[in-house]
């Protein structure tokens, strides 16, 4: 099975709040000087792909769109974790591309990669969280689409997929090619790379393509689809109130307050 895992490099979500800032002119998060990592759910997607590889000997290609200059660590991590090769579409605008444009570029890159039975992506990016790439990419590829999956395994000629549902989870079948978006559960916690795999990663192939190498990627008739008019950091205030009285009175007062706040 040939698997492509699409990942996005984002500002580390663990970044201390004091180091987080927004650029009012571009209406984007400031990335410069911040630690950049593989987006959280994309790492889960990579883990699902590597488990398929462990089980059935799949080939795993890690694919990303972004500025090559900053992508080194993330690409190397994807390779150290066990991807066989990586493809970078070197586009400085990559991290902030609208989902629709990104989906078309990814589809074009996957066509250029060649054989592909399964595309795995994180269910949402850790920065914009639009959740649109998987369905739009499936549409572009004419592939089956399953969203919010946690586990994937081969079944007959296709795939057996476990996905989250409001009432628990569903186990469904999917044909290939398929695009599956991955969310986290206890079975797909990203593995840590071994020391020797970190060393070996530098010997694995990394292909760098310019956006022009993908052929023309047309804009949608409706433009970018989403226009960001403003960005702001939510202002949070905290206050502490001590409830007086005996424990039973405190409990009653607490319940009343939580109800008033519509938290109960």
């Amino acid at each position, binding site marked *: 099975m040939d698997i492509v895992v699409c990942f996005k490099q984002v500002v580390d979500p663990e970044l201390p709040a004091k180091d987080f800032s927004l650029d009012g002119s571009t209406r984007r998060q400031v990335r410069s000087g911040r630690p950049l990592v593989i987006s959280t759910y994309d790492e889960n997607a990579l883990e699902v792909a590597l488990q398929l590889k462990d089980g059935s000997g799949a080939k795993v290609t890690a694919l990303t769109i972004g500025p090559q200059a900053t992508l080194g660590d993330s690409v190397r991590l994807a390779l150290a974790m066990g991807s066989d090769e990586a493809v970078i579409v070197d586009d400085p605008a990559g991290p902030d591309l609208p989902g629709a444009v990104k989906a078309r570029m990814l589809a074009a890159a996957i066509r250029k990669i060649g054989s592909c039975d399964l595309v795995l992506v994180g269910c949402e990016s850790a920065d914009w969280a639009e959740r649109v790439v998987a369905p739009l990419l499936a549409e572009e590829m004419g592939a089956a689409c399953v969203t919010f999956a946690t586990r994937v395994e081969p079944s007959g000629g296709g795939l057996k997929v476990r996905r989250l549902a409001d009432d628990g989870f569903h186990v469904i079948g999917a044909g290939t090619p398929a695009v599956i978006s991955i969310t986290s559960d206890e079975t797909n916690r990203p593995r840590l790379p*071994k*020391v020797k795999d970190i*060393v070996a990663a530098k010997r694995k192939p990394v292909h760098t393509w310019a956006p022009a190498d993908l052929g023309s990627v047309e804009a949608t008739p409706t433009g970018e689809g989403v226009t960001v008019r403003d960005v702001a950091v939510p202002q949070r205030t905290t206050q502490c109130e001590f409830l007086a009285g005996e424990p039973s009175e405190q409990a009653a007062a607490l319940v009343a307050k939580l109800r008033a706040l519509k938290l109960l």
Partner: protein
Amino acid sequence: MNAVLTDEHRMIQAMVREFAARALAPIAAELDQRSRFPKEAVAEAAGLGLMGMMVPEEFGGSGMDVVAYVVAQEELARASAGFQTIVTVNNSLVCDPITRWGSEEQKRRYLPGLCSGERLGCYCLTEPQAGSDAMSLRTTGELRGGEWVLSGTKSFVTNGLEADLCIVYARTEQAAGARGISAFLVEKASPGVAVGKVEKKLGIRCSSTTELVFDGCRVPQENLLGGRGEGGRIALATLDGGRIGIAAQSLGIARACLEESAAYVGQRRQFGRPIAEFQATRWAIADMATRLEASRLLVHRAARMRGEGVPCSREAAMAKLFASETAMWCAHRAVQLFGGYGYVADYPVERYFRDAKITEIYEGTSEIQRLVIARSLLSRR
């Protein structure tokens, strides 16, 4: 500081930091309180390639340089100094001398298991009457009937309870001091080897520290490590590497003190404001950070020199001396900043305080480090 680390070093640092956060930090206090050996975490560390970091890949190791090793040790010690003790002994004091002085057969026989976590090593140099004066050791090795027979008692053996393989130093030659000593690879399960007293320690409690008693223990001739009479030289050269490992442990403890203190003083309010706003607090934090950075520079320099094969006894001693005293100093400041909460087990700094003390003692006390440094600077008298 990152400017001197390669991309590879930084990736290893990130991996070990994540491992420590996942597998060690949640259990570090419990390991300490129960003096429990973290068998599962050791196995996981071995799987990641942390038990034989500098052993060449052909013998099952990770084939990394000494800088990568110290970077990893700092991260482990940041979470659990006791755990790091287990790891650093296996790496610095057992795998490293076998790699450097072992025969091809010894390397093939012992290193893969030590790297994979199937086996654990310990280092048997110190004796009840031979601590800082290690070369006065009295354990004897006699060649009888084509085998070596070892007799004597070793003390303060880290990993003594769980180890499978011991490097044992014994007096085999008439010559006094270092020239009369040979090193042996001894299976702990051999007849004539017994675990003696298990020490109850102030800190690093999840690693065992025991006596090992050798009573007529028979060792095949092929288990001599290096040549006859080379044991003293091997022991001292091994300790240069061991000291760098303990210096890296000191960095981890000092960093733990700094990071926990920096977080705490921002939350702890007294006199209507966070105590971070008081100048005395800010100076303490600044001094901790500055000493830590200076220590790290010394440790990384010594690691780089050792990796390049440059004699570095003085630099290793300087790194170990300064970093260990920095760890103790930072732990002292951290407990003071936490006040009463620094004295109780609800917060981790009391554990850091207890763990820090050993770094000034083992693998050469601070006083011995000063002697090593001074000896390299002054003419012999």
